[in-house]
């Protein structure tokens, strides 16, 4: 925001409801500048993912502008408008309303980490006809018949559909036999519940897996002992451990290690990025997490080395999680759409997303830069990440793999 715009908006807001008539005022804008939005949590308990998404967006904008901006618009530069969507659905909705009311020249936006927030945000942006890219993967997001939401990640149900068979194949290749029994420990958040539903209703049977232990907890987990005890006595071939809070993950993994089930004695798999967050290393040792795998929608992988190095140098992030790489990719996707639309207009950009067919995607796993009629990216894939020597590295799909997967064997 340039200085005039900033000053003006502050005054309007402070003068409160009485002076509201002023709000629609058109703002002075530097020539050749196109605004794109980032609606993410920057306060409250989801601040950290919001921050790393912001890093991805900033890097993306910087790279695009350094490479000549939007060529179809005479080299116009992209400008990022960041708005904090807070830690509740109400705050997210208010933030979205604010961004559409006060940034009328915004052409596209991305956000908002938690699918509940994305749901609320897109209820507003849909009505304002603002196209929104999202890395949230709840199926519901693109099941509402909305025309202005574009989901770059595979949906939750699709991720388990893709992930589990791949995992089984991996196990078979590495250890020579297919796992037969599985234990599932999960929290009761929306993501875990959706994933578990797909697993239990369809995928376990399809893969010939027998569910021997199933335990659900409500975060925060206070004591993992009873959970892990059940796993130890059942001795499953595979453990699905699905926490969504770093503290829960830590408690569970420490207990697994304490009971002597760690380091792959029972191969452990997760379904979210929580278990591969950099924060994990602050609370558990690299040995505790060694060998653990997780199935995620996106990850910094082969081909992203320069980016990862830049992220490390600039923001001190040890590796590139889904939040960074997807948001970075979103900026390029917006650029693509702007080039195609040929004008800085949100409806034209939305139409460009709908009709886009830009070939294989560079910053999302698998599939094309193309959206189906629901707004889901065509053939969006998953990434399997494994902790190896203190860092989570991509081990699948092979074209993105940074290292070979190893399947821990029962001693």
């Amino acid at each position: 925001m340039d200085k005039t715009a900033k000053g003006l908006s502050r005054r309007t807001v402070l003068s409160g409801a009485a002076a509201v008539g002023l709000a629609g005022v058109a703002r002075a804008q530097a020539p050749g500048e196109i605004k794109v939005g980032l609606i993410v949590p920057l306060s409250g308990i989801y601040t950290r993912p919001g921050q790393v998404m912001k890093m991805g967006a900033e890097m993306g904008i910087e790279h695009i502008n350094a490479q000549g901006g939007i060529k179809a618009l005479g080299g116009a530069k992209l400008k990022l408008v960041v708005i904090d969507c807070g830690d509740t659905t109400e705050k997210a909705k208010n933030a979205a309303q604010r961004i559409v009311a006060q940034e009328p020249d915004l052409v596209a936006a991305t956000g908002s980490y938690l699918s509940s927030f994305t749901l609320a945000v897109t209820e507003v942006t849909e009505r304002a006809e603002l196209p929104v890219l999202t890395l949230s993967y709840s199926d519901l997001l693109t099941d509402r018949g909305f025309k202005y939401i574009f989901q770059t990640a595979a949906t939750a149900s699709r991720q388990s559909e893709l992930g589990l068979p791949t995992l089984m194949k991996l196990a078979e290749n590495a250890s020579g036999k297919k796992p037969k029994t599985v234990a599932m420990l999960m929290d009761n958040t929306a993501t875990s519940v959706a994933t578990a539903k797909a697993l239990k209703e369809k995928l376990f049977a399809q893969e010939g897996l027998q569910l021997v232990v199933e335990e659900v907890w409500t975060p925060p987990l206070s004591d993992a002992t009873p959970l892990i005890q059940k796993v130890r006595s059942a001795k499953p071939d595979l453990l699905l451990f699905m926490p969504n809070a770093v503290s829960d993950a830590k408690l569970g993994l420490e207990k697994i290690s304490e009971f002597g089930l760690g380091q792959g004695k029972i191969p452990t798999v997760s379904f979210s990025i929580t278990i591969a967050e950099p924060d994990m290393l602050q609370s558990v040792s690299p040995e505790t997490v060694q060998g653990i795998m997780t199935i995620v929608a996106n990850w910094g992988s082969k081909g992203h080395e320069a980016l990862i190095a830049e992220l490390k140098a600039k923001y001190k992030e040890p590796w590139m999680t889904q939040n960074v790489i997807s948001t970075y990719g979103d900026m390029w996707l917006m650029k693509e759409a702007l080039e195609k639309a040929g004008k800085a207009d949100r409806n034209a950009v939305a139409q460009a997303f709908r009709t886009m067919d830009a070939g294989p995607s560079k910053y999302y796993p698998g599939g094309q830069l193309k959206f189906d009629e629901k707004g889901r990216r065509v053939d969006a894939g998953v990434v399997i990440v494994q902790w190896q020597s203190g860092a989570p590295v991509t081990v699948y799909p092979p074209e993105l793999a940074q290292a070979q997967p190893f399947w821990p064997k029962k001693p």
Partner: protein
Amino acid sequence: MLRMRSLLPPLLFTLAYAGISLGVTNSYYQLILTLVPVWAVFGLSWNLLSGYTGLISFGHAAFFGIGAYATALGQIYFNISPWLLIPIAAMLGGIAGLLIGFPTFRLQGHYFALAMLAYPLAILYVFEWLGFQEVTLPIKRDAPIAYMQFSDPHIYTLLGLAIMLATIVLTQMIERSRFGMALLAIKQNEAAAEAAGINTLAWKLRAITLSGAIAAAIGGFYAQVLLVVTPQSVFGMLVSAQALTVAMFGGVGTVWGPVIGSVILIPLAEILHAEAGARIPGIQGVIFGIAIVCVILLAPEGLFWKLRDLLRKRTASKAAVSDIAEAAAANVTALKPASRQRGATGEVVLEVKNLSRSFGGLKAVQDVSFKLHKNEILGIIGPNGAGKTTLFNLLNGFLKPSQGEVLIDGRNMSGQRPHVICEAGVGRTFQVMRPFLRMSILDNVVVGAYVRARTDDEARKMAADAVARVGLSAVADRVAGELSTKELRLMELARAIAGQPRILLLDETLAGLGHGEADEVVAVIQQLARDGITIAIIEHTMQAMVRLVDRFLVLDHGAVITEGLPEVVTRDNRVIEAYLGKKWVGHAAN
């Protein structure tokens, strides 16, 4: 006339607010304008229960969430319009209130507050378990108005305003009626309220039912505004806290409190979020918190009361001089010599047979029997711990006797609830006074009249009459907080007789009074007896009692020592021994 005058401010406020809203074109500000009445109504619903009864609910999100989910799920699964679903939500909220209230009202004070906290948290997990982590309202492009989906955001604000106006008017009506008086009486002293003939459980259940219904209705409307419902956003701790915050900030126990709180806090939070939060994310919470702490420190009962007190002080200081003169003149009619017929021979109105009550090993009252004759004044005396107050508590139903019977007009009433005994014609006052300090004397007294009165007007008339009988008419409009101990005692007396009891139990009515003051109160009591009320009075100070009573009943260690005329009893060695100890018996004989 009174009705119109009370209707005018909310009407004007609503119109002004609607005017501002219509002038706002920015959709973000409009959304904030919509959320203000939403949280105001939620605060009002909380106020209806907790503000008036003093039973703090930390769990109003339970009702709010039920309303929100009912409205959302009804649309998704049954395709019902929210125009219909919001009233249905209100009904469900009312039922939930009843179901929650019934077991929870057994608890009091902090225990009630904590138990209430549990409900939304428990329901939250139920909804998560049911798989309703994220629910979105289906978009109805073909029939938006039938499904309350307006493209013009002004309409949401106007709808919210309409609900707020309705809630304000409803609250005002309740405030002035028997309902409101009963709730206020429960707040000041639940036991006293029961004793004044108020069926406290029934009124509390009505309050929580209505409160739940309002909260659920506004929850349903909130879902309609937010379009997305998650357990956290409608059942979460923050939601319950929101009701408390707006009400406590604006003022508890008044219809304007939650409205003031919401009008200030909701836009403030948003402005902070938009402005400060954009620069230092998270700082908005800190500023908001500090602002609330400061206001609570400066105005602990909320802005409304603070402003009203300031206003009153300004007007009061002018009128103070004339007021004092009037108050002095208002004192009780001069003490007349007792010309009353002693009634000890009349018919028996209350008979106690072998009444006992023990607390564990302690026999507080053992085997007490006596008769109260029509129109007599019975003094019940005894040293500290003799069981006098326990006896009263057994008589008016606070305690159930372990053994024995209490016959009122020949009917066994032992073990009945206090309000039932009150209805049977037994009024009582308390050793410790708990007047409602912000209410006028007349309003304090009206509470006692409802046990007999059929309408609000009749109750006011009876209360005015009772106030006149104790000689407080001239100061009837003063708030209780400005009264002296004597006046408070008289006011308590007025409340007890406002329900026109035939039997009056007075518990240390003379305690804390000076010599002259005690005489004035004694005169009032004598006058009441002359008017045909039968009185039993507990008292320590023998001097006043000897002149007042017809007969004494002396208790020690829970048992009757002796009974009889004052001049006989005061010379009884057993009485002197009980009061002063063995060695004084000899002295007294001399």
